């Protein structure tokens, strides 16, 4: 900015206009930043206040159903679905990532990379509907844990594969060469040398996948169904409850207690998702600076 000193001639109209436009521009940018961050803080605030005020022991001990009950079935369902989805997604995702990073130089791998980016951008409802047609109608599983877990796994695998690939590529190739020089086989190099060195990145990807599967709703509506009871132990033919369904449906109920349950569910979901994302970012940042 031009500081007006006695040496300078008075500002012309053009200069004045430029300065004013610049100031206004900065103000606009500041307001924009504020408008982006304020809703986040408001969301966290609203959900936390309402969620905490709905807090009670019943939340953890009773199933949903009626208006005086808890969220036990939903919490258990979310945990079970997430665990099953991760059990399917982690081996496949990390395997695909290893393949892309270590052997991925041909046209085929570029095609896989492109397709996995496309799959990442596919609306989750489309995947959910696909699972509905294939698993629920086609295989006749009915709303079930297996269908829900597989759907979420399809959703997570591309993320996991790309993050694993990036992490593995950052391992210096001198480490690989050193291992090969010691007479290690391909498998030994990948699993004993490269993968441990890239473990932080792989764990990051897994955690982000976990956050996605806890927060997803749309694909589960068409696959998991809903149940007022805890998980029956069956993988097919028995619907499962999950937390995000509570948020979606209970907020439309007329009574205050349903709203309280919806906020409590939202609070738990948000807590898990934000905790994972914040910790991942802090850890990754520390590594970058080190």
């Amino acid at each position, binding site marked *: 900015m031009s500081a007006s000193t006695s040496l300078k001639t008075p500002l012309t109209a053009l200069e004045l206009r430029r300065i004013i436009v*610049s100031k206004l521009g900065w103000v606009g940018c500041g307001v924009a930043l504020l408008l982006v961050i304020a809703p986040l803080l408001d969301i966290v605030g609203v959900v936390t206040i309402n969620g905490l005020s709905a807090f009670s022991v019943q939340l953890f001990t009773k199933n949903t159903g009626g208006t005086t009950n808890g969220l036990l079935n939903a919490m258990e369902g979310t945990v079970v679905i997430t665990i099953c989805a991760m059990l399917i997604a982690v081996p496949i995702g990390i395997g695909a990532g290893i393949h892309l990073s270590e052997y991925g130089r041909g046209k085929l791998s570029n095609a*896989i990379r492109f397709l996995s980016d496309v799959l990442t*951008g596919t609306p989750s409802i489309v995947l959910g509907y696909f699972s509905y*047609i294939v698993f629920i109608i086609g295989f006749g599983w009915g709303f079930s844990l297996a269908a829900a877990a597989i759907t979420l796994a399809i959703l997570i695998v*591309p993320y996991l594969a790309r993050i694993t690939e990036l992490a593995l590529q950052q391992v210096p190739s001198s480490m690989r060469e050193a291992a090969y020089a010691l007479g290690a086989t391909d498998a030994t190099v990948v699993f004993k040398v490269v993968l441990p060195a890239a473990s932080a990145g792989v764990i990051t990807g897994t955690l982000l996948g976990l956050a996605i599967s806890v927060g997803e709703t749309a694909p589960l*509506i068409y696959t998991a169904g809903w149940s007022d009871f805890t998980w029956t132990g069956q993988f097919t033919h028995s619907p499962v409850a999950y937390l995000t369904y509570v948020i*979606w449906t209970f*907020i439309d109920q007329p009574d205050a207690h349903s709203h309280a349950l*919806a906020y409590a569910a939202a609070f738990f979901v*948000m807590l898990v998702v934000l905790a994972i994302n914040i910790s991942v970012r802090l850890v990754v940042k520390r590594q970058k600076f080190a």
Partner: protein
Amino acid sequence: MIPAALCAVVLFLVVYSGQAMIFNGLHFVTNINWNLGDLYSDPVTVNGISIPPGANYGILVFIVGTLASSGIAILIAVPLSIGAAICLAEAVPHRIRPVLSMLVELVAVVPSVVFGLWGIAVLIPFIGHYLSPTGNGYGLLAASIVLALMITPIIASTLLDALMQVPKENRESAFALGATHFEVVSKAMMPMVRTTLIGGIVLALGRALGETMAVLMVSGGGINILPTSLFSPISTIASFIVSQLDSAEADPTNMSVRTLSEIALVLFIITLAVNAAAKLLTSGALNVRKH
């Protein structure tokens, strides 16, 4: 596995919606009426395909709803994210920049159902009370605002990364010509990152088109009527698929389930095209900047 999964998605959707495509024809995308027909009567057979009597499927309303809400969301999100990114890149002290940019990125990870909850609890009463002439907050505007919030971080972080990569020499020469700090940013730096910005916008558009839960919760779920104002209830393709689950299951001929899979296919193709465009734009942008 990944290509297999993707091909399987397309294949099953196409196979399953085959009958629906034959029955619906091209009217499908130009018809505004969605009528499941009389689900309790005996199915009738039209052109060898069994459907509930009176059934009639048209998705123009949902296509318009999707495009309108995403379009308005982009209109809101672009200035916001450009402002926020410029602010983060240039005006904010180095110490707190990581914190603020993390906050912006965190907006993107909030589950969409929580956005919907916030929309119902905060945004809908606000619109209903202050803006809407009918006092009803659910509708196009609410859906667009929620969508805009969800996609802003995508554009902003893409732009922020690009702005940080602008060579020092370009900034310094602009300063040396006597430009004010804001002119340096807006006239020297922004043109350099324009392609990246467009790529980010297209990427965000892809996300907005496919967004489901938040839109479902605040859009008012209008069917069979085209939106006439910012406050009209709408449905997007994605939210409509969710809302039709129950009624589709009640159809003994399964025709509505097949038609829904045709809708899912339409949505898939639209987002596929948009994402592919975004990918081409962003990868092309890197080449341009290196020259």
